[in-house]
């Protein structure tokens, strides 16, 4: 029973991480319908930026965190302005391959400066944050990451619900032409959604780095794990991304614990194929994809 609960807790926390990582991805897709294959590298950029600020520049944690968010914001903005904007209206394959190319460039830059080794952040979480339930122990990083995840989820929920920019973003996602004709600055919305998505990605990257240490290859692999998560949750639903993340996380840890550790990495993709065949718009997505 303890084993089960420990797996449950692990699965929930890993799932929440997946959900967090997927959030930025969904945000980009929701407003500009771009399938971002560079998402894992955006996570890694944030994680390494934080690493540079904390260990090399020696800044205090909260300052480094804020600067990382700001840096990721600028990065996302620049990526949209320089690379994605010329491609508005181009066919899907070019947009997809552009993000694949960007992923390669980011990965190359990170490998050039940091190599493929594992880096770690200095210890900064207070040890008292860990929670002990009977025989089950939840480590402090998981508590902190769950906390950050929930805070950001609520913040974004409020942002999309009430702020003008959030409403513009939703309107563009809903119907680009209608939004354009009602005076929404669609290009600005694209830029903003990339910037915010990169910011969320940077934050998720830091959380991932705190939990597993930072390694270019591992973090960018998470970027591919995002696909089963978002398809399960629905490509355009931010809440769905979190739920999908948690389901995939639980599925992974239970497969790992009860069946076989090697199956762990392939189960999400098997689920992905099944969902695509049965319910392609996911659990919470809008059911308006075009059937052939």
């Amino acid at each position: 029973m303890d084993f089960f609960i420990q797996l449950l807790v692990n699965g929930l926390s890993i799932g929440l991480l997946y959900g967090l990582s997927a959030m930025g991805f969904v945000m980009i897709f929701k407003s500009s319908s771009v399938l971002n294959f560079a998402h894992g590298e955006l996570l890694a950029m944030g994680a390494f930026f934080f690493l540079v600020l904390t260990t090399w520049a020696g800044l205090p944690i909260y300052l480094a965190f804020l600067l990382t968010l700001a840096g990721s914001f600028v990065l996302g903005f620049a990526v949209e302005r320089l690379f994605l904007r010329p491609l508005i209206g181009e066919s899907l394959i070019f947009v997809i391959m552009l993000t694949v190319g960007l992923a390669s460039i980011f990965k190359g830059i990170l490998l050039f400066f940091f190599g493929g080794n594992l880096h770690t952040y200095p210890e900064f979480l207070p040890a008292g944050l860990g929670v002990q339930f009977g025989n089950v122990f939840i480590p402090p990083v998981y508590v902190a990451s769950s906390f950050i995840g929930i805070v950001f989820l609520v913040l974004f929920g409020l942002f999309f619900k009430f702020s003008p920019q959030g409403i513009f973003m939703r309107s563009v996602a809903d119907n680009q032409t209608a939004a354009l004709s009602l005076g929404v600055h669609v290009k600005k919305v694209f830029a903003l959604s990339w910037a915010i998505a990169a910011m969320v990605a940077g934050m998720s990257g830091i959380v991932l780095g705190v939990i597993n240490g930072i390694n270019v290859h591992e973090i960018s692999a998470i970027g591919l794990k995002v696909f089963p998560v978002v398809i399960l949750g629905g490509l355009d639903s931010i809440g769905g991304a979190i739920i999908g993340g948690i389901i995939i996380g639980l599925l992974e840890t239970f497969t790992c614990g009860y069946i076989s550790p090697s199956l762990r990495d392939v189960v999400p993709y098997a689920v992905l194929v099944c969902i695509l065949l049965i319910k392609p718009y996911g659990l919470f997505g809008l059911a308006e994809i075009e059937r052939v």
Partner: protein
Amino acid sequence: MRRFSFHACGNFKESYAQEITIFETDFGRFWLLAGLALLFGVLPFVGSPYFLYVCNMIGIAAIAALGLNILIGYTGLISLGHGAFFGVGAYAAAILATRLGLPFWVCVPAAGFMAALTGMVFGIPSGRLKGLYLTIATLAGQFIIEYLLVHWESLTQGTMGIVLPEATLFGLVIDGDRPFFYVIFTCLVLVTWMTKNIMRTRFGRAFIAIRDNDRAAEGMGIPIFPYKLLSFGISSFYAGFAGAIWAFYMISITSEPFTLGLSVEYIAMVIIGGLGSIPGAIFGAVFITGLNEILRWLTDIFMSMGMATGFGLNMASLRELAFGLAIVLFILFEPKGLAEIWRIVRSNFRLWPFSY
């Protein structure tokens, strides 16, 4: 004897047969023959073994890229699983040759058919899905096949890999770079000829119709789903065929190379070469394979100078960066790829000195 024509003096086509003709002038025929003579008669004898090895790699990549171009460039379906289909071909050839002891000339097409079957299985979602949903489905296919290649140990021997027997053709043993050069490039010429002609039949026209507007195509009586599956099948056949030759050429194979990275490399070849262009796929294969080799050579130089090793400048980072830059720059500045550049250069020559 009919008169040779060396220069088209305008667009005077009167029938569809003239429209789809391969060679508009005898000039093209002449250059093709000259090119083939150079390829088969001169290149294998003047090139060093390393040069021939690079040529062989280009040839194998070009076969796979031609197949992918049928799928992406002509049918408008995106597959992120071609690296895995290539791997299926390689493993199928290896297993058929070692377990059943089949000869080379049976193994290679059979491996192609195995890959075609696999490709069609992962093409089934295209019956319901299109666009990015289909792309994600093929991505899942890539990961599932990769997993099976490593973990289905009774069949693939897992990480141990398989050692293939010597390839023989018509009683001759094919080993070393020069014999393989002839085999690979004969196959490439045949495959190019086949692709060109598939595109001139009703199958090719149906693919193009589906790419341009699938609803209109259906309205005109093209059964979309069978044609999409067929496109998946043909393109995976090419990938598996290339994979099988590669396996015999490499002698021993493991599951390592058939990753998502390889799939992306093939798509990059198709895009950099030019979507929906047969010479483009070959240009793309030359470009990407050449880029890989140049980067390897550069890294060796840096390494031997010993200056950059401590800084983490290794093959991986340089390669990723250059590869990504090539894709991004081509998409942003020349989305029609090398084929378009080739066309512009050619028409400049033809129209010189009045090239406007």
